[in-house]
């Protein structure tokens, strides 16, 4: 297998920096040198991530200007985006208050409307799920949804249902959620270790 020098160098740097940072974070209070290394590397990461916002803006504009140029389907939305982007930049430069007002009146209103739409998307999705295929698991899912919704109603007649809902949320749901999160956490540690010891695909190609 032919190994490129640049790949080998990048892998060596990644492994060294990764292990120094892990050691610094785990044993930092005993070894000030490692703690210092970890601090510097984390600061560099933060600065680099902050700079990626510029990459994001360039990406956004290049995608939508290309769409407008090629007159692809939905190019009108891309044109609106490019015009809005320019408008916000100009308004921010001229009058920051107007820019903030635009943000609050347009962005927050649109997001609130979408949040309202989300409820209907969920309910319609549950209906479609039952129409598509009725299985034991689907019935259990719908029963749990109905139980939680009914148990949340502020009616004294529904107090027994509220108690059942509280029990379901605190025992089976909580246990299931913890199990899922533990599984994800374990897998994250193992995958992280694979990256740390240079076995990730990006080091090999």
């Amino acid at each position, binding site marked *: 297998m032919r190994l490129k020098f640049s790949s080998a160098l990048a892998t060596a740097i990644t492994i060294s920096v990764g292990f120094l940072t*892990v050691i610094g974070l785990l044993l930092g209070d005993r070894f000030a040198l490692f703690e210092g290394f970890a601090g510097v590397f984390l600061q560099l990461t933060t600065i680099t991530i902050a700079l*990626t916002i510029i990459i*994001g803006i360039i*990406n956004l504009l290049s995608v939508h200007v290309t769409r407008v140029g090629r007159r692809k389907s939905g190019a009108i939305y891309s044109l609106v985006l490019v015009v809005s982007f320019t408008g916000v930049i100009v308004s921010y430069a001229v009058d920051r208050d107007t820019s903030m007002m635009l943000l609050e009146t347009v962005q927050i209103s649109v997001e609130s409307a979408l949040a309202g739409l989300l409820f209907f998307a969920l309910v319609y999705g549950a209906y479609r799920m039952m129409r598509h295929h009725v299985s034991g698991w689907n019935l259990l899912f719908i029963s749990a949804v109905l139980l939680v919704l009914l148990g949340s109603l502020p009616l004294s007649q529904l107090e027994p249902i509220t108690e059942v809902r509280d029990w379901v949320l605190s025992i089976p749901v909580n246990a299931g959620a913890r199990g*899922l999160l533990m*599984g994800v956490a*374990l897998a994250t540690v*193992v995958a992280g270790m694979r990256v740390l010891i240079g076995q990730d*695909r990006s080091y090999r190609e």
Partner: protein
Amino acid sequence: MEANQIFASLIIALTLILVLITTNFVRRGRLNVILRRIPAYERIPSLVGLSIESSRPLHISLGSAGIGDESTILAITSAELAYQVTNRAAIGDAPPILTLSNTSAIPLGQDTLRRAYNQRGLSERYSTTNVRWYPNGPRSLVFAAVVSTMIKDDKVAASIMGGSYGAELALITDASKRSDVPIVAYSNQLEGQAVAYALADEALIGEEIFAVGTYLEGGSVQVSESIVIDVLRWLLIIVMIIGFVAGFLNGR
């Protein structure tokens, strides 16, 4: 040294040893690994086929997973999913589209697509505009709205959602269903997992996404990773049972 530092060091050391040992065993063919069925991974090759035959792009998404926070490893794993899918779909007329809402994942996404095309010897087909960043807003609803419209505008053949989403994933699955576009979904957030399970055609649950390399490629490194995850899970279960029994015997 505090107890949690010792515990974290032990887990990292144990994981490192297990990864090295199992990789060695798998490479030498000393472990006979039988994988359980995961319908989502079985579905992905047919979605790639659908994209190639219909000359419509596949949509792959990393959601809000990014580099530099707690979702870093998830972003790298979702990028592996994107690599596997792009690698298969690269020969089609319509190049896959990768969407993401975290700017730190843009270089990762672009590098992933570039490597997938290079591996196929089709580097001239790679375009940086196939990776699309859409800002997420405070609740990722804007990202969900944009992806919903993109599914229709770009005549997407199928959607494969990796990464991180909340309940807003319902908007994307709804748009997919309305356009008759099959969708495979995953999220590391519980709300997103619930939506994916209920509304997507196939869902990846819990740590299943971390087995992407094992199921779609089957290399020794990826298989050993899945084995180590299983070993650690059983160790955790045994520790929890011992803790429960010890607590019970002590009358707690």
